[in-house]
């Protein structure tokens, strides 16, 4: 079992953190994991992405060509990564701010209106956690329990009062793909 995942969007959307929580979740699941960010000025605007490889055996390369799963949060990232999804792979995207919809016919495409859900939930910082909830619902590579344990590891203790709100956001995200 191996999954090569890319999460791509604008800097500030929580792309790297989402990958980090997913990576910690994989650690809690006792899997091998690598987390490779795009680093640099894009943290302050522009596009940011992170590659997370999760496997039950030793991972050779943290850098890959093609992805089993792509989580796409803006138009630039869709243009860049739609064609890097492996045939039969999964593309999750938020249509907010996207004007050209994905066109591939040989992959599974799931639309998640995470921005709308975030606005409805009224907690702007929960956007990435809502998306993470949708991701693990469609692609249960990591259990929700382990995602929440991972979140506890990523959040400094002084922010642990935010855990319930984040757990709620993950559950909102999971319900979004029920419909």
């Amino acid at each position, binding site marked *: 079992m191996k999954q090569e995942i890319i999460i791509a969007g604008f800097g500030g959307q929580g792309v790297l953190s989402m990958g*980090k929580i997913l*990576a*910690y979740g994989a*650690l809690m699941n006792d899997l*091998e*994991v*690598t*987390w*490779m*960010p795009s*680093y*640099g000025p894009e943290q302050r605007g522009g596009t940011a992405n992170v590659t997370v490889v999760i496997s039950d055996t030793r*991972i*050779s*390369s*943290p*850098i*890959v*060509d093609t992805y089993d799963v792509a989580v796409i949060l803006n138009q630039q990232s869709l243009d860049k990564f739609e064609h890097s999804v492996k045939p039969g792979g999964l593309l999750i995207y938020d249509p907010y701010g996207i004007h050209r919809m994905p066109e591939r016919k040989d992959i599974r495409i799931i639309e998640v209106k995470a921005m709308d859900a975030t606005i409805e939930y009224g907690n702007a910082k929960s956007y990435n956690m809502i998306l993470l909830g949708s991701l693990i619902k469609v692609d249960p590579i990591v259990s929700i329990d382990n995602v929440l344990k991972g979140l506890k*590891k990523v959040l400094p203790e002084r922010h642990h009062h935010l855990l319930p709100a984040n757990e709620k956001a993950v559950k909102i995200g999971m319900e979004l793909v029920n419909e």
Partner: protein
Amino acid sequence: MNQEVKLMKGNEAIAHAAIRYGVDGYFGYPITPQSEVLETLEAEMPWETTGMVVLQAESEIASINMVYGGAATGKAVMTSSSSPGISLMQEGISYLAASELPALIVNVMRGGPGLGTIHPSQSDYFQATKGGGHGDYHLIVLAPATVQEMADFVGLGFDLAFKYRTPAMILADGIVGQMMEKVVLPEPRPRRTEEEIARQCPWAATGHSHGRKPNVVTSLELDSALMEKNNERFQRTYREIEKNEVRYESYHTEDAEYLIVAFGTVARICLKAIEDARAEGIKVGLIRPITLWPFPYDAIAEASKTCKGILVTELNAGQMIEDVRLAVGRNMNVRHFGRMGGIVPNPSEILSALKKELIGE
């Protein structure tokens, strides 16, 4: 035994490993992509637990000279930087080598030359392995490919530096500095006491109230006859290191018709290319030098005996390839594939290069 598995960046692993090894002092100046070393040390505040000094100096030049001062007293001291900062340190590194001082220098390489980019590179291979500063000297150069090795090579680097009284360098690329993966940190151990340091380092400037002859730590020797003797002693040490400390890892070399030689994280990208090549029936092996100096010449010569060609893959214009050519001689087809300036190739680019350069497809 606390074998807790943690998830962290390579740069963070270096900081944690340094505290646990019992390092006495870290002196550095921030630069991407290695700033997390200093950041993590400052967040961990080891001065309150082990007594380790952590100091952000005013520059890289100050940092390396603080390392020189600490090392002269027998303390385990280190610095870290990235390519342009390491260039600034070269004078101090040459002085450390000439004064036979143990120290650890970490270079998390970025794309050059000049100020270049902040993205990953391996273009400081020549500088690290051939003596970046002036004079006939070598550093022991360790090239980590995993976050685990980033942690492990801190201890290994110091152990070798003290064993041979010579500075050691961890030559990492921006990828392994920035990426996170699982790591088991070394068991914490206390810093050495002053008595232990005096016993382990009888050459060090530790004070001489007990009537021994003063220890003088210097790289200056105006008598050329003596300076040549010093050089001969350095060279004897280097020959010992070459004899004892060559380290490398090989994969799938037993039946290989083609060989890839790569170091650091690039070796892992190559390994994925090799998995893909083997799925197509192309028999490729990999040698990953772990010590870039001393270089595993014999291992590469041995592995190449059954091979039709070698592809050296690096994040530079072709530097380690010179050592590979020295290892195998002129009759072997040795080709290079590299990306420069902070660009990292993906596995399929490497597989294409292998086919184009060696198989003629």
